[in-house]
């Protein structure tokens, strides 16, 4: 961090980046692509199911369908349709390549190479995205920076933090990283999980029909933020969590401290009143002294 970016009396405690394995959800998409690509190579080249893939389009159809199916499942589980569209784009790209360059006869070799090449590209993009993140913990605030093309930044002062949410998955427990979401007074750092259920009933079969739809929704607030607005996958997790909690503690005034301040204020007021009274008394005595010699 540039020295000019620091505030007066500000001291940087830690500069952090997410752990290389903290974006495993994204990396897993690439890992799956590699595994599936190699499996297709095995299926079409040396396995006992080789004959099924004798026709070139079978390779493309099986590969594409499995990829799209996994894309749908992953999208439903993570509530992120971009995964499905990413895989859809990949399948469309493969089809376009095969037809454009006339690779029909070598589809069994092209598809695995295409899968592995795109997964390597995916790994590089994820790594680039990870490296764009930077979290600066100073004695006054936390600065979150991130974004590959569009640079995003969030500054959070410790006295504005109301709540700290921390989570550590199994991979995080093994490698010692975790995510810390500081929730601000304005509610920044909170997301919501929505679920909706709906059903339909049709009454009457021939002419007269009645269609009724009923449904219900549920919303649960949950700590959630973009990876560049939270301390995503920071290592060593326990140490960082302890540091942030201590910083918040140091910057937040407790009820006891508030009481103490009120008492001190009262004491100052009383002392001021006493000073004024003393001043008045001294003033009146001096007046009396000045009056006496004249008499």
């Amino acid at each position, binding site marked *: 961090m540039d020295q000019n970016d620091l505030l007066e009396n500000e001291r940087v405690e830690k500069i952090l980046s997410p752990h290389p394995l903290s974006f495993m959800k994204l990396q897993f998409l690439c890992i799956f692509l590699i595994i599936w690509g190699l499996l297709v190579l095995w299926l079409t080249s040396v396995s006992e199911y080789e004959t099924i893939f004798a026709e070139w389009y079978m390779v493309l159809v099986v590969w594409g369908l499995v990829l799209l199916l996994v894309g749908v499942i992953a999208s439903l589980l993570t509530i992120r349709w971009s995964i499905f569209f990413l895989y859809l784009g990949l399948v469309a790209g493969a089809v376009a390549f095969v037809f454009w360059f006339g690779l029909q006869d070598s589809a069994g070799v092209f598809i695995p190479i295409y899968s592995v090449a795109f997964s390597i590209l995916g790994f590089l993009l994820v790594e680039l995205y990870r490296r764009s993140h930077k979290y600066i913990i100073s004695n006054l605030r936390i600065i979150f920076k991130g974004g590959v093309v569009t640079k995003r930044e969030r500054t959070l002062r410790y006295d504005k933090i109301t709540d700290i949410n921390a989570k550590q998955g199994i991979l995080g*427990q*093994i490698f010692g990283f975790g995510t810390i979401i500081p929730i601000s007074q304005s509610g920044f750092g909170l997301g919501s999980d929505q679920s909706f259920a709906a059903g339909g009933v049709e009454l009457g079969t021939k002419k007269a029909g009645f269609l009724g739809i009923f449904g219900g929704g549920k919303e649960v607030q949950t700590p959630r933020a973009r990876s560049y607005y939270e301390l995503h996958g920071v290592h060593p997790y326990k140490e960082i969590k302890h540091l942030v909690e201590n910083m918040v503690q140091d910057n937040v005034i407790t009820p006891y401290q508030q009481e103490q301040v009120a008492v001190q204020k009262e004491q100052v007021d009383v002392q001021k009143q006493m000073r004024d009274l003393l001043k008045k008394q001294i003033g009146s005595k001096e007046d009396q002294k000045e009056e006496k010699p004249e008499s």
Partner: protein
Amino acid sequence: MTVSPVDVVVFAPLAPLFGVLLFWFIQLMFIESQKYLLSKIWGQHKPLCRFTNFLGILYQTICHALGYTVTKSGISNFYISINYGKVAPKKEKKGIFEWMSNSFLFIGPFFIPSLLLLICFFLIIGSGIDIAQSMEYTFAEGMINFGTNLYAFSESLFSFLVSIDLLHPSHLGFLILLIFLGMGMRPSYIGEDKRRKVNMLYDLQNIKNHIFHKPLYILILFLIAYIFSYVSVLLKTNWYTSLFSIFGWLSIIAIVALSITHLIILLIKTTDEFPRYWRHLPYLTIFLSYILMRIVFYFFPIDHLRTVSLFVMVLSTIVVVFLLLKYKTNKFKTVTKMKQLRVEDGPKRSIRK
């Protein structure tokens, strides 16, 4: 040959039981040795050790949950982390049900993960194992049959392992599962600081307490085993020995899995002594040598090409490790160098105390 009735009634049912106990004890020794090795690399490979802990706790909690499911206690809470696992039942059952679910907890991790692998193994090889037929139901015959069954299974398993095709997804999956099983197969925990429990006595103590807590249940189990043995004798079948042979097979699978993980941990421990970038060379050799041999044999096929590829892979890795030990560490250097020094400097030069 005359068969003593005392032998048939009293001693014969004990034969396969002793066999299972013997192999289970060998398994326990391997587990103990693995825990010792893991504790040696704890400092430098914490994530690996944490991962093995997680696997161990995962198997243990799954076994415990299975115990509650079998005894129809239900599961109200299932929690697992890298150093702690907890399964709470829906209904707190006492007596035999509680004892059974605890048996799953203490003894399950030794056998249940192996059972999963045994099923996978049979699915992969696509054939069964020939079971030895009993001619006489005596202690000696029981032992021989048990040993024969174990030999038949071991032969099948080792034949598969020495000709395993690492480019075949199911074979590779089986090997990975075998390694994962070997890494996690231990009921006790290797962890941080004071929670470290690195001894076999801890496991045995738990099992002993469990058995002696309710000795009546053990007696009932023995009674059931004896009745089952008598039924087998009366029906002239080999069910009794076959059942216990399966437990023996599970132990053999576990011992093989533990042996493989031993080799992996030893490799990790040895490579830790190498300088920074050189330590990756043995691992690269494993992959490259195998792939290279398979490519060569793809163009010039020979008999037993998978076995030869595996052999070359193992041999080249050992050679690379020894070369690195010789040229990149101080191993194998001290003795020869000291002798040379003494000869060059002559007998006059010696250390005076």
